[in-house]
């Protein structure tokens, strides 16, 4: 569901400019600044305090944990019924972050990797505040770093985020395939990347994670220049990952480029939707808390559809 930033602005939320928070060197402090401000601005929102809400009863089955038998119902009906709740308050939350060289691009003073790091940090911090176990996997054409999900791993996650650099070319399929072995327990997985792959390839790479029972969301991070292609002078463009050079006349290609990007985005979004994978597009000029809104909106949707 697209989120309208102006809606939250009218609710009194102070959006945080990514370029401003980039000045905060400490990633934990940055995440806390963004998330706390975000929560304070949302203290009247209906999404908080939903973690242990009662959902329904079901009949007792042998092997069920007798701690969840509703004894009051048993007293009235003399039958065993089990209490079930809407959500697991201690779910695993992991972010799969693309650290390929294409993520080092930035035209607005902040690179896509920086934006993705801040976003990941904020999401992990927010999840940790909700007592979720947080984990991290960083990849390019293979898995670069892996931090298993744990309630105590927030510090490690933030540290790894702080130190990571974009060095090599990216390839989505191999690390995604490997990651299916790492996330055995159902988790909420956020894949953060620019997804410069064929849309079908992207979905094919991510789909196994979804089939493993994980809640998967795809956050696509792009620079405004990648979306609008504002270049004027005819220049030689160089691919950050392959090093390949290409003479380009921007004024000629601009419209075609925009159309191709739009089609690519639409195609990924469509395929993700078909595979029950949430999709969101972020450009690096978008405030970070705006991204958090998107995330929470997704969680609510996940809970309702579960």
């Amino acid at each position: 569901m697209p989120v309208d930033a102006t809606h939250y602005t009218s609710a009194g939320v102070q959006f945080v400019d990514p370029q401003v928070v980039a000045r905060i060197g400490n990633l934990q402090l940055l995440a806390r600044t963004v998330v706390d401000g975000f929560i304070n601005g949302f203290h009247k929102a209906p999404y908080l305090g939903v973690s242990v809400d009662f959902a329904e009863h079901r009949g007792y089955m042998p092997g069920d944990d007798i701690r969840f038998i509703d004894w009051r119902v048993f007293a009235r009906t003399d039958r065993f019924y089990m209490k079930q709740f809407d959500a697991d308050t201690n779910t695993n939350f992991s972010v799969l972050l693309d650290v390929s060289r294409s993520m080092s691009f930035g035209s607005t003073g902040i690179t896509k990797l920086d934006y993705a790091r801040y976003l990941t940090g904020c999401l992990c911090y927010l999840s940790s505040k909700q007592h979720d176990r947080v984990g991290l996997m960083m990849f390019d054409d293979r898995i670069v770093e892996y931090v298993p999900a744990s309630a105590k791993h927030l510090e490690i996650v933030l540290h790894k985020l702080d130190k990571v650099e974009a060095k090599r070319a990216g390839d989505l399929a191999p690390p995604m395939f490997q990651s299916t072995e790492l996330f055995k327990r159902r988790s909420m997985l956020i894949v953060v990347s620019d997804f410069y792959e064929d849309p079908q390839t992207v979905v094919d790479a991510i789909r196994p994670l979804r089939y493993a029972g994980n809640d998967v969301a795809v956050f696509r991070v792009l620079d405004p220049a990648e979306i609008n292609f504002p270049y004027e002078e005819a220049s030689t463009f160089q691919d950050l990952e392959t090093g390949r050079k290409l003479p380009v006349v921007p004024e000629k290609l601009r419209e075609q480029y925009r159309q191709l990007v739009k089609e690519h985005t639409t195609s990924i979004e469509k395929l993700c939707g078909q595979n029950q994978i949430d999709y969101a597009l972020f450009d690096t000029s978008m405030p970070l808390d705006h991204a958090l809104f998107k995330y929470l909106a997704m969680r609510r949707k996940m809970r309702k559809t579960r």
Partner: protein
Amino acid sequence: MAFLAPLFFFGLATLAVPVIIHMIQRERKEVVEFPSLMFLRKIPYHSFRRQRIRNWFLLLLRCAAIALLVAAFARPFFRVSSVAAVMLGAREVVVLLDRSYSMGYGDRWSRAQDAAAEVINELGPEDRATVIFFDSGAEVGPRSTTERASLARLIADAEPGAGTTRFGPALELAEGIFQDSDLPRLEAVLISDFQRSGVESAEGVRFPDGTVLTPVAVTDETADTTENVSVAGVTFEREYFSGRERLSVLARVTNRGNNPVTRLNVTLEFADREVETFSADLPPNGSTTVSFSPVTLGNAAVNGAVRIDGDRLLTDDTFYFVASPGQVVNVLIVGNERAASAGALYLSRALGIGSSPAFDVVTHSINDFNASSLNGRQVVVLNDTRPPTGQTMAELERFVAEGGGLLVAAGERSVWSPEATTLLPGTLGSPIDRPGHGGSLAYVDYSHPVFELFGGPRSGDVTSARFFRYRPIEVVDSATVLARFDDGLPALVERSVGDGRVVFWASTLDNFWNDLALKPVYLPFVHRLAGYLATYTVPPPWLPVGQVLNLAEQRSLLAKASLTDVDLVAISPSGTRISVSQSERAGFLTLTEQGFYEIRNATTTEDSALTLAANVDLSESDLSTIDPDELASSVMGRTTGGREEAGNRPVREFTNEVRERRQGVWWYLLILAFGLFVAETAVSNRLSRTSLQVD
């Protein structure tokens, strides 16, 4: 149209530059890093709009600007301009009118005026003309004017002068006018009697190519035009009889005609009075000398003239002169107390000879020498004696300071104390002996008036004298050494004191210390030395017409007429008053007329005046002529190579360089190219802004 530097058209290859820049596939050097090129197609430049010319107007503008720039450097010019100008008939006409005194022969001058007036009358409305009057110099009226009336009036008012014919200055002046002219047809009309004597000055003069020089000879071909008798000059013989000076005038009369002249009356006049007339016969192309009887002169100069019967050329029939009384230089020789007269024997005898000037010599011993001895003296010679003392010395110093001359000759007794040497040009030393053959003069300043007489070959060898003894002199800074011995010591030293001169001679003036007195050069040497010390100048009996007289050099003559330090005015023979002091060249007087010039005080009417006689140059009396066409062909430049248009009149052929320089087309092309570049800048900027707005 043609081009002076057509090789510059290779520069048109630069026209391809804007096209090539526009069309060529050329990747920019700066690289833009981009996350992924998966959406960017590789499109070469040449496959897109760079291969397509988007704005033809801009391209044409650039190409035109470059083409104009190249054309400007190629220096274009139009060949047809001169032809076009010919069709208009414009001419630059220079009339050169000879006004030397030979043009006064018969009716030559009136015929010359008629010929010049006719040329002026034939001028077209677009023609420009200049009239140059010439004799030995050239005078130009209004330059390149179309006002025919003023030119005609100028010709009508002109009269022949007293100068000689020299074609050179006039032709050079005309050449300058032609070179400054931008008219295609250049014509000169030379109206003269074409005397041979004036041709030499025209060597090297050459009119611009295409100039036509039309000679108009005003001589009468049917008559003997060389028939002319003139007074060629006079000489004086002076003698003294009964204490009075008598002057005999000898006049030389020349017949330049081919026929003998008989019974020609030759008359001597003094102060406008006829004194004596002789009848003379002259052979063809010959001359004779007429000797008049001696005439006693008074104390003042008198104007004289020798006249002959008038012929067709009157100007050279009278010769004017000023007969001045002979001048005497008074010399006082002061000898030592022992042999004043004996020591001055050679000197006094030498000065006693001669009449130009005559020397009045008085000899005293040093003991008899006093202040009164200086009265009326112009030169004092201290000959081998000690210096005077006391009041006498003071008077001697005053005498020199006021313009007197002092000659100090060394000798055995010429012992001067340091206090007494203030007049001398240095300090005297003890005598130096030169045994054997003795010494000689090794350095002589032949540019000095004393020695200039000996400067020429076979004019006397002053170095032949032997000097066996002389006194060294330590020369002061203000003195000038005129001669040195062969050992380098000064022999003759000069020093100016006030208005006077002091000369020191390091040896004796007799034959005691040297043998100079026995040499032939002795007499002219002492004459020149005494004349120099007396500031003796020969008053010129006459001067040639055309001479520029520097009055500053005539101080002695002006002083005799009491005309120093006053404003002067010269009255010419025709009565014209010429303010000499306030003229363009103050102090200079140009003698342009024949006859007597009087120089007077401009502020008073006193009779005191300096009279100068001026006579024409007799080379003009030789009326032999040259072929006018010969002179014209030597002056005219290259012909037009047979190209004749507009009524068979030669057209001036400009060189390509001259055409290009006169037309200056490149300048306009350069301005136009610059304008196009400015327009190109404006258009391209506007197109760029429009393109950005569309994006």
